[in-house]
């Protein structure tokens, strides 16, 4: 089978059984990655199951580009029902584990049930075994990875740290020590299954249907990334990492500061990308077959620790969101999140929430703004569920409910997931995607970048001159439903191939017209040869994921934003005085997607996308 490995693993942890199955055509119609997971989780999970129970299913998935010559193909993903939000969870990761899985001969792995004792999965080409993890249970991510690498003479390890073992609701699964399946608590799902790690070695090939064409696409990619108009953007990412956004977002008033109260940070130069690069970067790193190579290796001098990062999101969550301008503390807190296995966004957001609650006298603990050492201390406390950390480990939504006293107004989340480094008051379409993303507050399912900073050439090409003004106005609700709708189904295709968002979200090196060549050169399948059909597949994946959430009881009432964005005007900067008028954008967004005014998928929308069985389950047979 070209492009795909052609097989998958189904691991029943309760029974200790391992099955190798052929990859079904029914899944291939959804391309791969998030498409596979949408189909599987809809079919195999029942509504209402407890995410930390053995009934949850955890999937590790690749796509047809993973591990191949096509660039930006070092991405892979996991999905399950989230213990943080109770709805759809997916998290993507970059590195080398996904390619290794395909070389071992598998496109995805499905984990069911719960092991009787701590276990880990070893995949060594045809040899697949569930092994005792007693020795490594309790170890940090670095310790676990080193031990398994040594024990099995292999490189690629995915594992949880103490946070996942302690069922921290936003704990992550880590790969290659520093890379995260970060969001939505997949680390806790793995911990709830007594599954500590997945260690992989693969030595097989992946074949392409048209290797000559694939080779041409590979050669041509050099122009797209390194020689053409997007070269500076790519090289900027290579030099500064995603942290290059810090200073820029501050310029547009969209750098979340003080628990998303403000969008401008006075001390931005102290935590910006220039200082990170000049004073803390000691090396660079990259994912498999990446043209951009955006990873920074950093040394925390104060704590004498080397790790990767920080990304832009982490500078926000552990830095500006906590008014923490001590870059050394910030970098070490990032290293610690990785080593203990936690999502830096949710973790930092929880600490910022605690700082605001402490200031308001809602909690007895003293957690002060600006205190970088306290940030480090709280990261550890959350991972080990000690003191206040135990409360924060539940996520800000649950923590606020427990604290009471109006703490809910400081809990910056959507559907229970903490808000990432965007602010709808300064970037309306960013607010819309936060409100509507299937995994809760999330920028990676639907962030529109044309209006983020202002890309008139691309805006003009996509929408024409008459729509350009509305498309570029990031402070206006007009046309933003269209822009989020458009990128959402495109990113669903991207997340199914799986390609990195660097190259598809920004810089905009590849778009729909490029995808048929990529997929047909790899797979040879005619269903992927037509752009209209690819768009339809992307829409089908989005609607299927939304159906998953609708089956759990979600509707328009859950597509919302914190009051801070809806009714507290931005205090300073370019977005001063702005709030988000979400309803206007939601109405437009729902209309485009074929949802009713309550955000429920219209039956005819499901018919049009070939999801009749989903319609029957949601609305009954007629």
């Amino acid at each position, binding site marked *: 089978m070209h492009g795909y490995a052609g097989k998958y693993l189904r691991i029943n942890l309760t029974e200790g059984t391992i099955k190798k199955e052929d990859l079904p055509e029914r899944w291939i119609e959804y391309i791969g990655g998030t498409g596979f997971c949408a189909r599987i989780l809809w079919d195999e999970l029942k509504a209402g199951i407890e995410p930390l129970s053995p009934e949850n299913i955890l999937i590790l998935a690749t796509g047809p580009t993973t591990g191949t010559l096509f660039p930006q193909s070092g991405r892979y993903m996991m999905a399950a029902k989230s213990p943080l939000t109770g709805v759809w969870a997916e998290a993507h990761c970059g590195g080398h584990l996904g390619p290794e899985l395909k070389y071992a001969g598998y496109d995805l792995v499905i984990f069911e049930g719960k092991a009787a004792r701590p276990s880990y999965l070893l995949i060594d080409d045809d040899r697949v075994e569930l092994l005792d993890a007693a020795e490594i249970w309790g170890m940090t991510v670095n310790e676990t990875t080193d031990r398994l690498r040594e024990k099995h003479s292999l490189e690629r390890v995915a594992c949880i740290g103490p946070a996942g073992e302690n069922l921290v609701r936003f704990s992550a699964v880590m790969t290659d020590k520093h890379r995260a399946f970060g969001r939505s608590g997949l680390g806790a799902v793995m911990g709830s299954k007594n599954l500590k790690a997945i260690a992989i070695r693969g030595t097989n090939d992946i074949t392409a249907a048209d290797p000559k064409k694939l080779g041409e696409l590979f050669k041509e990619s050099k122009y797209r990334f390194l020689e053409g108009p997007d070269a500076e953007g790519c090289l900027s990412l290579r030099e500064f990492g995603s942290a290059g956004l810090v200073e*820029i977002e501050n310029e547009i008033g969209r750098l979340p500061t003080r628990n998303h109260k403000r969008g401008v940070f006075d001390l931005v130069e102290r935590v910006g990308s220039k200082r990170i690069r000049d004073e803390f970067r000691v090396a660079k790193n990259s994912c498999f077959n990446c043209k951009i190579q955006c990873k920074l290796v950093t040394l925390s001098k104060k704590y004498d620790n080397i790790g990767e990062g920080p990304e832009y999101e982490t500078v926000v969550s552990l830095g500006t969101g906590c008014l923490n301008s001590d870059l050394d503390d910030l970098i070490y807190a990032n290293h610690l999140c990785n080593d203990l296995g936690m999502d830096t966004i949710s973790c930092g957001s929880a600490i910022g929430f605690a700082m605001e609650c402490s200031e308001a006298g809602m909690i007895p603990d003293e957690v002060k703004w600006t205190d970088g050492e306290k940030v480090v201390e709280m990261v550890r406390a959350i991972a080990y569920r000690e003191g206040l950390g135990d409360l924060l480990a539940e996520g800000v939504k649950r923590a606020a409910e427990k604290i009471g006293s109006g703490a809910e107004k400081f809990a910056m989340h959507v559907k229970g997931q903490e808000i990432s480094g965007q602010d709808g008051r300064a970037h309306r379409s960013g607010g819309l995607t936060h409100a509507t993303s299937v995994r809760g507050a999330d920028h990676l399912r639907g962030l529109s970048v044309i209006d983020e*900073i202002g890309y008139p050439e691309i805006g003009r090409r996509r929408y024409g001159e008459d729509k350009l003004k509305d498309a*570029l106005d990031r402070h206006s609700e007009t046309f933003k439903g269209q822009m989020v709708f458009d990128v959402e189904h495109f990113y669903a295709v991207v997340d199914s191939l799986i390609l990195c968002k660097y190259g598809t979200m920004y810089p905009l090196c590849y778009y729909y017209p490029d995808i048929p060549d990529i997929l047909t050169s790899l797979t040879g399948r005619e269903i992927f040869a037509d752009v209209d059909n690819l768009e339809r597949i992307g829409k089908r994946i989005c609607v299927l994921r939304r159906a998953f959430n609708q089956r759990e009881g979600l509707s328009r009432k859950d597509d919302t934003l914190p009051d801070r964005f809806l009714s507290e005007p931005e205090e300073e900067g*370019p977005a001063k005085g702005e709030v988000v008028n979400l309803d206007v954008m939601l109405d437009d967004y729902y209309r485009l997607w074929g949802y009713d005014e309550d955000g429920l998928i219209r039956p005819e929308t499901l018919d049009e996308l070939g999801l009749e069985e989903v319609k029957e389950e949601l609305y009954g047979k007629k």
Partner: protein
Amino acid sequence: MSVFHPEGVKHHSPANIAGKKDNEQLTRTPKGCHINSIMTTVKLFGALRDRAGTGKVEIPEGVTIREILDRLGEKYGPPVRDLLLEEKAGRPVKRQPVVILIAGLPQLDLERRVGPEETVSIFPAVAGG
């Protein structure tokens, strides 16, 4: 109206007196004229800042955005000029991946004059999160 600074004449500004490299000036005054310009700030980011060797430049208020790009190219040479400008139909135009903001909003009209107390931010395009 361009303002010229003859060679060898020092322009006394807080930045020059402090001797800080991070705040340079792009001024030219006509010979014999006193310097009495209100200065506004051009902020440079990312690779642009690296190539210019500075993150802030002061310019007289009232120049156009096009004039700012021209002067940056003149002052800092090809490493900066090639990033900002390209030849199209025989004249230099702003390159696509360069973003220019004033008060955080993108500027598409290069003939726009910079007003008093406005700050211009210029950087190679970035986005995302």
